[in-house]
């Protein structure tokens, strides 16, 4: 039985948790002081040893990513934190920055010091004004406290931190599109190699990390590498934020060691809404293949979810009960990918358009049974042939839902319409009936 482990969220119930005073009352900036007393390479080694892996979706080892930055190359280095958080279902980084922006500032100081960067950026999506205010204020307060700017904490290290605000584009969460956007261009992905570690922002060595990855770093220095390693599973160390949403009694943020199961999370949080049963769910956002009630005991770590045919992704657990039409859900996600496709490559730009057309007909009960094969064929031509992972992600809900719910697609055709009542799946079904 895995229990909860609030670390990042531990003090979110204190009304001043977002202020520098609140943060420091609870030991904030102590990790930075310990890290700045080490050589940069020793900082990288500690993060490597901790086993911390990226929380932005792909799970790449964070310390290893930092170690790819060439040293002594005479070029400026940059840290860029990805706070674009736009993957459908994902809702952890924004509450984290609202309640505790200083954990990110502290993590950014440590990471920048380790990779020898004197400029760090945080790219925040633009649709969250109050989160942006909190982040801007935290940065201003950190400057005033001498934690940013020249000669930080008297250690002879300089760092400027710039808060950059996006303007509404999911693709800018993809790290190379984000860099183009930050350089002032349309946010479209770049060809790799070269990877950002060699030629990132302004063609200089750059680390791009997710908010939660970087905000987790200070704890490694305050509590120690062994402490961090003591949580989680063999290859997925540490704690993380799981975001529970949808048809559950208590949606919200649940911080726990990696490897907890959805059954455990549901048991402790009251389960599915009264009188209903779970039908399908995403383990890590809409780009990760869906799961069903068969998968309640899958350990929610990188290996466990992968072995069960999906991806841990952003740990966005979107839960849908038996009132939800899976075809409607998948159509809506597909419309999202079509809307957000940046248009750079043909498989994704044209493919997502066709996927929407076919899914619309199926949802409306006017398609044909052969359309299911056409969908799978299209997905086959998009997956692995797209320029970036947005195209790949667009196929996940389709192929996985046809795998688990082919009969439900067909039921639309025999009924000549969607057999579900959309009112039944709303939150206010009782109130408005």
């Amino acid at each position, binding site marked *: 039985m895995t229990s909860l482990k609030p670390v990042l969220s531990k003090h979110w119930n204190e009304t001043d948790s977002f202020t520098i005073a609140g943060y420091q009352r609870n030991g904030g900036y102590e990790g930075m002081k310990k890290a700045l007393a080490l050589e940069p390479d020793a900082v990288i080694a500690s993060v490597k040893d901790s086993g911390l892996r990226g929380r932005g979706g792909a799970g790449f080892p964070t310390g290893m990513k930092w170690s790819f930055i060439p040293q002594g190359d005479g070029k400026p280095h940059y840290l860029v934190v990805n706070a674009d958080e736009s993957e459908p279902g994902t809702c952890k*980084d*924004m509450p984290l920055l609202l309640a505790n922006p200083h954990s990110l500032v502290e993590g950014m100081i440590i990471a920048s010091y380790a990779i020898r960067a004197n400029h760090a950026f945080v790219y925040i999506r633009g*649709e969250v004004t109050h989160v942006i205010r909190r982040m801007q204020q935290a940065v201003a307060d950190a400057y005033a406290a001498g934690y940013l700017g020249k000669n930080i904490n008297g250690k002879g290290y300089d760092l400027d931190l710039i808060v950059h605000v996006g303007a509404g584009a999911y693709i800018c969460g993809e790290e190379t599109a984000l860099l183009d956007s930050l350089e002032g261009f349309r946010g479209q992905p770049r060809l790799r190699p070269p990877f950002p570690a060699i030629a990132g922002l302004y063609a200089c060595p750059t680390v791009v990390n997710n908010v939660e990855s970087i905000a987790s770093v200070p704890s490694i220095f305050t509590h120690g590498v062994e402490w961090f390693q003591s949580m989680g599973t063999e290859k997925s160390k540490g704690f993380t934020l799981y975001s529970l949403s949808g048809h559950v009694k208590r949606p919200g943020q649940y911080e726990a060691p990696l490897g907890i199961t959805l059954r455990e999370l549901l048991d402790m949080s009251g389960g599915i809404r009264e009188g209903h049963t779970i039908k399908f769910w995403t383990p890590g956002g809409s780009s990760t293949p869906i799961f069903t009630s068969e998968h309640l005991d899958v350990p929610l770590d990188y290996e466990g979810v992968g072995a069960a045919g999906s991806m841990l992704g952003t740990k966005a657990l979107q839960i849908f009960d038996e009132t939800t039409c899976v075809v409607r859900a998948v159509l809506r996600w597909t419309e999202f990918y079509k809307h957000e496709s940046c248009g750079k490559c043909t498989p994704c730009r044209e493919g997502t358009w066709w996927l929407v057309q076919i899914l619309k007909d199926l949802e409306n009960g006017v398609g044909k049974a052969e359309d299911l094969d056409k969908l799978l064929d299209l997905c086959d031509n998009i997956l692995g042939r797209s320029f970036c992972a947005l195209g790949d992600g667009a196929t996940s809900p389709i192929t996985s839902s046809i795998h688990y719910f082919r009969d439900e697609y067909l039921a639309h055709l025999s009924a000549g319409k969607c057999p579900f009542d959309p009112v039944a799946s709303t939150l206010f079904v009782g109130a408005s009936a």
Partner: protein
Amino acid sequence: MKDEALLAQMDSIIARYPKSRSAIMPLLHLVQASEGFVTPEGVELVAKKLDLATAEVAAVATFYSQYKRRPVGDYHVGVCTNTLCAVMGGDAIFSGLKDHLGIGNDERTSDGKVSLEHIECNAACDYAPVVMVNWEFFDNQTVESAKELVDKLRSGNPPAPTRGPNTLPTWKENSAVLAGISDGRANEGVQAGPASLAGLEIAHERGEA
């Protein structure tokens, strides 16, 4: 729109970045703070400031959905209709508001007060269904609460966001914040909403925190 204060703000934004072109996005937010949307004159001014062709600035402005090419209301209402919110009631809220206001997607009421748009996942799914006004959170909405909300916006009594400042800023005021101009309101409002604290509370009940 070439008053001294605005030009000085533009210079201070450009000075933040190692390379000036990186300032294009905040400058476009600043144009919206001044004009309400990205006007042709705004594009020209940004181009001039950054030493770019207007076509280069226009190419960027048209890529991002938050930059508007025509005026929006003082209160721009976004209803999340991505899957999770849509299923939980976002679709019903969006069609309810269209009927109630008599406008469609991307349209504005004739009094210029309110505009309406359906939006993608706004990173608040644990508060579904979600409505944003001027990119401030209005969590856990129903059709009725959303109608009441827009009525108050139209009658000049904007309610406070659920997780945001104590009063609701206008579209232009918030655009300035997005441009990086502080309004000094970061300390207002809650540190976290109830859903953000769900796991922490359960951990306390179970003696795990």
